């Protein structure tokens, strides 16, 4: 029998990006690294082409969201696991960065103390143990990735090992971020209680509130987003990515084929959490504040809606989704504050009912039907 079986040939791996894909990628890279800085810093403020500081801040922020959406897409779109706790990883990365920024304030705080203001306020004399490495930028970079990674790994190990899946998993991730939020709200935890961290002055001893620093962070965020996009693309095209999609579509069958999904799920879950941590770390210096409300369940579920609006299981979709939803949010909350929640709610309902594949799916469907009618003509 076995002699008659033909060797199975796997489809040859597709290139990382198509030719047009690379071209688009390059354009995006140039826009982020050259065009946007030039429009912001070189073009005079009165000109139509001038990119305002507000615009830089907004787009920079949205690119951080887009990283989260991309991370959410890896775990939800490609592996079928809906996390309602990604806000926690985002906030953990942000807090790691925030600790460093708090130490950088140095003696310029309101109380002229080596310790962050809130600790002086609480009458603490020394830094708590978890602040040990907060004065080193290198250690901070490590913590930004390690803390969300370790939390995700431990949580994921226990959850996936006992094969918690579907809605159960979603709900316990929500409980996880909710519990963490309550914990961070406490002053005793040593993260500034409900005020969190703010009033940052410097990063790497360079003043933080200057236009050039803002632009630097913007460019860094853009590059990070683009490289994460490539990373995700590579992951999804690899054999590892194929197994993930198989887990999403028929987990039981994957197990019967001799794979143990635990390692695959755990790896992508941890990677996804780390990406969110990086996004949080880039976000905090740009907005200048981090507090426990970033961990509220509502924030985490908003990440899911970015991915859903753009289109799950496409990589470009979640990035688009983050831009569409956050852009609409920043416009609506100013122009029609009372309509924002109606809009967001309707978006949740509308996308799940009518646009299961998101905006990207809609565009594909439209272009396909346009092609068809074009063929007929």
């Amino acid at each position, binding site marked *: 029998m076995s002699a008659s079986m033909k060797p199975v040939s796997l489809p040859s791996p597709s290139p990382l990006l198509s030719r047009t894909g690379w071209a688009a990628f390059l354009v995006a890279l140039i826009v982020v690294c050259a065009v946007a800085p030039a429009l912001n810093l070189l073009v005079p403020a009165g000109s139509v082409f001038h990119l305002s500081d507000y615009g830089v801040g907004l787009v920079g922020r949205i690119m951080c969201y887009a990283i989260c959406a991309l991370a959410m897409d890896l775990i939800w779109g490609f592996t079928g696991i809906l996390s309602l706790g990604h806000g926690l990883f985002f906030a953990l990365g942000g807090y790691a960065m925030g600790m460093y920024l708090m130490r950088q304030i140095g003696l310029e705080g309101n109380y002229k103390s080596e310790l962050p203001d809130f600790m002086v306020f609480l009458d603490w004399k020394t830094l708590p143990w978890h602040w040990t490495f907060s004065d080193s930028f290198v250690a901070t970079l490590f913590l930004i990735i390690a803390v969300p990674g370790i939390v995700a790994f431990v949580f994921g190990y*226990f959850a996936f090992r006992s094969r918690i899946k579907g809605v159960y998993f979603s709900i316990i991730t929500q409980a996880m971020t909710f519990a963490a939020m309550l914990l961070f709200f406490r002053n005793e935890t040593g993260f500034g209680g409900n005020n969190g961290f703010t009033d940052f002055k410097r990063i790497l001893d360079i003043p933080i509130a200057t236009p050039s620093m803002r632009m630097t962070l913007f460019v860094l965020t853009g590059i990070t987003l683009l490289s994460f996009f490539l990373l995700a693309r590579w992951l999804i095209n690899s054999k590892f990515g194929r197994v993930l999609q198989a887990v999403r579509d028929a987990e039981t069958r994957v197990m019967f084929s001799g794979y143990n999904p635990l390692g695959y799920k755990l790896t992508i879950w941890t990677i996804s959490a780390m990406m969110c941590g990086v996004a949080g770390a880039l976000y905090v210096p740009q907005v200048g504040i981090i507090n426990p409300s970033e961990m509220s369940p509502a924030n985490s579920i908003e990440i899911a809606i970015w991915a859903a609006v753009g289109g799950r299981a496409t990589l470009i979709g979640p990035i688009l989704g983050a831009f569409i939803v956050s852009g609409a949010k920043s416009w609506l909350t100013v122009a029609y504050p009372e309509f924002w929640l109606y809009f*967001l709610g309707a978006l949740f309902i509308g996308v799940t009912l009518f646009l299961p594949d998101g905006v990207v799916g809609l565009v594909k469907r439209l272009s396909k039907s346009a092609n068809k009618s074009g063929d007929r003509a």
Partner: protein
Amino acid sequence: MFKKILLSTLLLIAGSAYSITVEEVKGITIGETDSRIEALAKAMLSADDKTAAFLQALSDDAVKVAGDKIVVIQGDKVVDAVTQAEVTLPDDAEDVINNNRMRGEIDSALAALKLFSKDDTVRAAAVKQLQSDADETKLPLIEKALATEQNTAIKDQLGMVRAAALLGSADKAKRMEAAKLLATSGQANTKTMLLARLETEPDAEIKAALGAALRQVESALAWGDKLGALFSGISLGSILLLVALGLAITYGLMGVINMAHGELMMIGAYATYVVQGLFQKYLPGAFDWYLLAAVPVAFLASALMGALLERSVIRFLYGRPLETLLATWGISLMLMQLVRSVFGAQNVGVENPSWMSGGVQVLGNLSLPYNRLVIIGFAIFVLGSVAWLIGQTRLGLFVRGVTQNRPIASCMGVNTARIDTYAFALGSGIAGLAGCALSQVGNVGPDLGQGYIVDAFMVVVLGGVGQLAGTVYAALGLGILNKFLEGWAGAVLAKIAVLVFIIIFIQKRPQGIFAMKGRSAEA
């Protein structure tokens, strides 16, 4: 405001007899704090309503001094403090400054005078206030009040206050008597009082008696604390049960992840608020019974909203739990904003009917509020009704049939789509009942549901999906566990500990306490 009302009633009672003398008024008002306090203590020996009115004015900063004339400002009138005759405000009138010590003395003197009020609740409040600062100077007043007191509960309390006052006596026999009396009190402030006295007590014999009294009080208190934690645990459990029961139907039986469940509760709470408003406007006489009308209204309002949601959104998403989760989250956002637009973003006030305020005093430091007791009873009633509805009626039979095997139920002629709507409306209606109950113990605002949604899911998940019994055990267990941890580690840490416990528990038993067996377990 309350003080003003009290003042005017006291004035009315007082009539025009002057029993407070010029010397007393001057002594209390003018001079050094020490001499004023002495004068106050002396005046208290012959005190009556006039004294009370004057002290109240003093406490309200309504008394002014001009030379040796002392006047009281009453609204836009100025009267002489002693004769009550109307006078013009002298130009050189100065405010009377009361420092904190003087203020404390005035307040406790006022409290002592309130012991003779005709209103039981005023007297009870006065006794409570005196407990913390009883001393020998008030002993004559307390004994006078004790002699005339009719209400036994207040009389007992007053006895304790007398004992507390005796404790500071210079007479050894009296102190001994006080120690014996206080031993039978089971109140927290008795403990602090005894501890304080133990520190300063010179006599060894009395010290021993005080120590014995302290031990007796402490053991009574420990019991009260434990029972109190148990009761608040059961109370929290009953609320969790109400919140989770609706979810046990929509999620447990139907498998619909309804993130808008909390907002359906909020609708129930606002329905209660509206009914309350209608009663205030049209039936003020029957206001105490508005809650009885609010219960069915809250049920119907939420059930209708639930049916609407099921027909318009949820029925298209059966079998896609993650999508349902997101869509219902969207619904919850819209409902919250809708309520904000209609009722405003602020919390609205829902009053307890008078028969629900107050409580039963079981032990010295343990009183069971009526509203909590009513909610426990209400939870039992709702649980019974749901169990009956699901277990005994035709509708329940259909619901169970459809959830167990939809195609076969359909073959038997059950209109499954209609049963889905009914079941969802039932679950939503129960959420409305929970909201009605919550309006009696907490704030009613647009965010009401948000605080409970995570808890509610935890209860259902812990109890095991598709199980009413599991939900009951999980709700009570979580409630009691939460309250005991709270006593030990504080509210926030207790909450975190409970969440961590649930996460670990689900590792061990992913299907909850009562796992479903057989094929349906995998569904």
